């Protein structure tokens, strides 16, 4: 296939219609780039926010679990100590 233009400047000149041809192609390229960039930007933003929200949810769940375990440990401790007192009382009564 043969190029239709003798030189690069002839290519830019487009037979005298350079301004209109390059205006049309330039704005087209710009619009396509902008919507591509916007779509990819939104994609990244969403991924970030969803990951953050999820990490937060996991942290909340873990904290809740921790508190629950602490509370349970405390109750166990209390029952243990009260058992101890009871048995001490039993011994005292036996004596």
């Amino acid at each position, binding site marked *: *296939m*043969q*190029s*239709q*233009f003798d030189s690069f400047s002839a*290519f830019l000149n*487009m*037979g*005298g*219609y350079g301004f*209109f*041809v390059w*205006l*049309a*192609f330039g*704005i*087209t390229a710009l*619009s*396509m780039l*902008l*919507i*591509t960039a916007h*779509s*990819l930007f*939104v*994609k990244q933003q*969403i*991924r970030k*926010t*969803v*990951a953050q*929200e*999820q*990490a937060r949810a996991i942290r909340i769940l873990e904290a809740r679990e921790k508190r629950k375990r602490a509370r349970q440990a405390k109750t166990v401790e209390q029952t243990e100590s009260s058992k101890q007192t009871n048995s001490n009382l039993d011994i005292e009564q036996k004596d």
Partner: protein
Amino acid sequence: MWKWINSFAKPEKAYWLASAMQPYFFAIALLGLTVGITWGLVFAPADYQQGDSYRIIYIHVPSAILSQTAYIAMATAALVGIVWQWRTAFMFISAIAPVGAVICFISLFTGAAWGKPMWGTWWIWDARLTSQLILLFLYLGVMSLYLAFEDKQQGGKAAAIMALVGVINIPIIKYSVEWWNTLHQGATISKFDQPSMPAEMLWPLLISILGFVGFIGIITLIRFKNEMIIRDKHRPWVMQMFAENSELQRLSASKKEVN
């Protein structure tokens, strides 16, 4: 028999399909746009009447045709959404509307830049140009209706009805050059048995159209996936998807520490 198609009403299935189609559209867009535009700008012969200004056709005709095709795709999704109550169909409308609007704007702008040297004016209020401008407003209307509602399901329905009503504009655009007197030239390639273009001009145009199809496809798919994640971010399938990702990240991070 057509029951399987209803599984695509589920976002997780639609997301999977969109991801599977993405690489093909990307390849078509890259190849079609590069080959079609280069061929059209450098190697196709100049027009005997319009000289090199006619080369705008390699972006003007693809964007003009496909802005209408994209509208029909959007209206089809609107019909599916309203009749079968698919959530994903409304998400598709919101994904393709901005892409269609950009393509429609490109067709109008390149038309103006072609009209100035050939007709002596950037713009004229004739049937073809005006109906194409209305198409742009229809796209913008669908987008803003969708965004105007807090409840996205409501917004989707409103936008879908607007998209369906606007379909009437498509045949008006198509036949405007036959029904009314206009500056705009008639169809170039739709009569395949006898196209009004020689093959060495027609081939790059067809390839460029294919490239635009790929471009519209890939951008719509990216936006469609975005919309599905935004709308469903608290639903289990999205949570699971991101949980898998973060699990992978944690694993790779711990591996690095070991090394």
